[in-house]
């Protein structure tokens, strides 16, 4: 593949799409840098697929502009855009064999040396020798690779992937995630990947935009979004969190001091996403340390709360403890199974602790349960529109 063509920036400016009264995409402005692997992550109906279809030209925006490189393509026909799509259910041409499916784009553009290019692409996607098969004679994983090959061979400036792995089983999906990432690094194109699976997005993407109700809720690297979410929706969609209600009492030395039911805990200033003083302090279960109360040592974990073990369940890689707080709340703690303390049984007095840079404080005006369940609540892939 010619690396000089490469990808191009994709810019969306105030992009809006309405279906009647329903606003699918709401004033979306986004710059996706050239050569990046960008994920649009969100639950069903959040507008991510509609955004993708507008970029592909399969849906007309109600308002706004789409720019690829320095070309405004907002009103360009889909077949004149330097963009190719890997469709959700692949949409392979059933009457053409694998070779002709992959060659389709090249033949339309009258490219020379189709045979050699197609053979090379089939090798890259590990489909060598399957060229004369019909799509119906391939397994799900093979069909997925044909769909990818058919799009990639045209060296689009931007490659759009619409839930490309949704139809595959878990094991194959993991394998294809790494495969996709490898191919993207190899060809250096701009990939825009739409998914509702947060693990998939985090595994592959350099940058993730979490979408909710037609808007981008937060944008950042996978680690950023996970460690320092700015809304409860993002925190919940990307994983589990414990939320403590509290209020900020003072801010000093880059720290905010939050009072939770009379307990003082510190949160880094850069991790406070609230203008008011009422906050939800969020801590991921695996960031919490659990110790038997009588001989607890604090070390770097300057924040501590006391409680009693309600239940413990052995999960394999870790043990999940449910710890009851004096004010009735239950907290979830994941402890690595390196050194299990046999005293941590139901009813044991324990101390849970964490470092100030392992928590985040979110505006208490939000619903604590927003986006709970993440991918599992949105297992069904998103449809094109209402």
């Amino acid at each position, binding site marked *: 593949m010619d690396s000089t063509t490469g990808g191009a920036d994709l810019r969306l400016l105030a992009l809006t799409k309405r279906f009647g009264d329903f606003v699918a995409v709401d004033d979306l402005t986004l710059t996706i840098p050239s050569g990046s692997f960008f994920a649009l992550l969100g639950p069903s109906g959040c507008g991510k697929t509609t955004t993708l279809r507008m970029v592909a030209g399969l849906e007309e925006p109600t308002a706004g502009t789409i720019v690829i490189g320095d070309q405004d393509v907002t009103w360009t026909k*889909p077949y004149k855009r330097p963009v190719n799509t890997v*469709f959700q259910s692949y949409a*392979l*041409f059933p009457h053409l064999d694998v070779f002709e499916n992959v060659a389709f784009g090249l033949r*339309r553009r009258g490219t020379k040396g189709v045979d050699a290019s197609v053979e090379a692409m089939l090798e890259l996607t590990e489909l060598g020798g399957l060229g004369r098969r*019909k799509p119906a004679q391939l397994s799900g994983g093979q069909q997925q690779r044909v769909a990818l090959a058919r799009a990639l061979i045209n060296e689009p400036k931007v490659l759009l992937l619409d839930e490309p792995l949704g139809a595959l089983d878990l094991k194959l999906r993991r394998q294809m995630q790494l495969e996709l990432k490898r191919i993207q690094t190899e060809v250096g194109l701009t990939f825009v990947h739409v998914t509702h699976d947060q693990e998939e997005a985090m595994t592959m993407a350099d940058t993730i935009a979490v979408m909710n109700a037609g808007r981008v809720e937060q944008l950042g690297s996978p680690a950023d979004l996970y460690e320092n979410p700015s809304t409860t929706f993002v925190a919940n969609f990307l994983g589990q969190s414990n939320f403590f209600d509290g209020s900020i009492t003072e801010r000093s030395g880059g720290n905010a001091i939050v009072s939770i039911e009379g307990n003082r805990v510190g949160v880094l200033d850069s991790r406070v996403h609230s203008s008011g003083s009422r906050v939800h302090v969020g801590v991921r279960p695996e960031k919490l340390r659990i110790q038997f109360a009588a001989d607890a040592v604090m070390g770097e974990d300057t924040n501590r709360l006391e409680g009693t073990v309600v239940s413990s369940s052995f999960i394999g890689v870790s043990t999940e403890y449910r710890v009851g707080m004096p004010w009735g709340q239950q907290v979830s703690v994941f402890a690595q199974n390196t050194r299990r303390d046999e005293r941590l049984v139901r009813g044991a007095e324990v101390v849970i602790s964490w470092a100030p840079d392992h928590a985040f404080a979110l505006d208490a005006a939000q619903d604590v349960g927003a986006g709970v369940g993440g991918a599992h609540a949105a297992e069904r892939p998103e449809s094109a529109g209402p």
Partner: protein
Amino acid sequence: MAVTTPSSDSSSMSVRRRPRGPVRWLRSRLIPLVGLLVLLYMFAPIFVVVLFSFNQPSGRFNYQWVHFSTNAWTNLCQVGGMCEALRLSLLIGVVATLCSVLLGTLVAFAIGRHRFRGRSGANLMVFMPMATPEVVMGSSLLALFVGMNVARGTGTVLVAHIMFCLSFVVVTVKARIASLDPRLEQAAMDLYANERTTFWKVTFPLVLPGIVGASLLAFSLSFDDFIVTNFNSGSTVTFPMFVWGAAQRGTPPQVNVVGSLMFVLSLAVVIATQVVRRRRSRV
């Protein structure tokens, strides 16, 4: 619960014995047996037609087996007017098929793909000829032609045939279009095919099986129509009308020969489609 009732369970098990002998034999073969009977019921008349095409009837009627002869097969056009009628029916069948498939496919695309005023009305109108009794359709057409002072003949027969074939074509092709995944066309457009190329490279090849099916249906409908044709043919004689007329005076075995030929021909078409389909689905 299961622990308390093992005795009653085992006793009920022992009561239900495995059937033996003829009952068991019949049970295991009941479905193929019934299937065979149904096939026999369907093919018996065809078998009789083929058999009597090799008969040498003694009188004018070919209803009694006299002795074996290939006379009817070798002297097909000996019967006055039959081959002319056959030729005319084939011609009408081909022209009616071409016209109705062309028009019907366009109608099917319009109704299947576009939302427009009067779409449901058009849909209903297309169904009407299928629901109308042929006698009613034939006589009203005749009234129309007489009222408009159109001379009855091959032309009016063609108009009538195209009309009733059209409905079947629209329904068949529309079903095929409805089963088409719109994402395939979107994928083609995404892969640099403009509207025209998308139609000829993706849409048309995928709808083609429906169009072929509709053509076969239209041809057989036109070829064997008697009632509507009889009303609107004037002095023109199609093959079904010839057979009808001949039956009054006595049927020559040549009619059976044509019947047998038609049967063999349609059988060949069906087998050919199956072979092509199998070959396509193979690696």
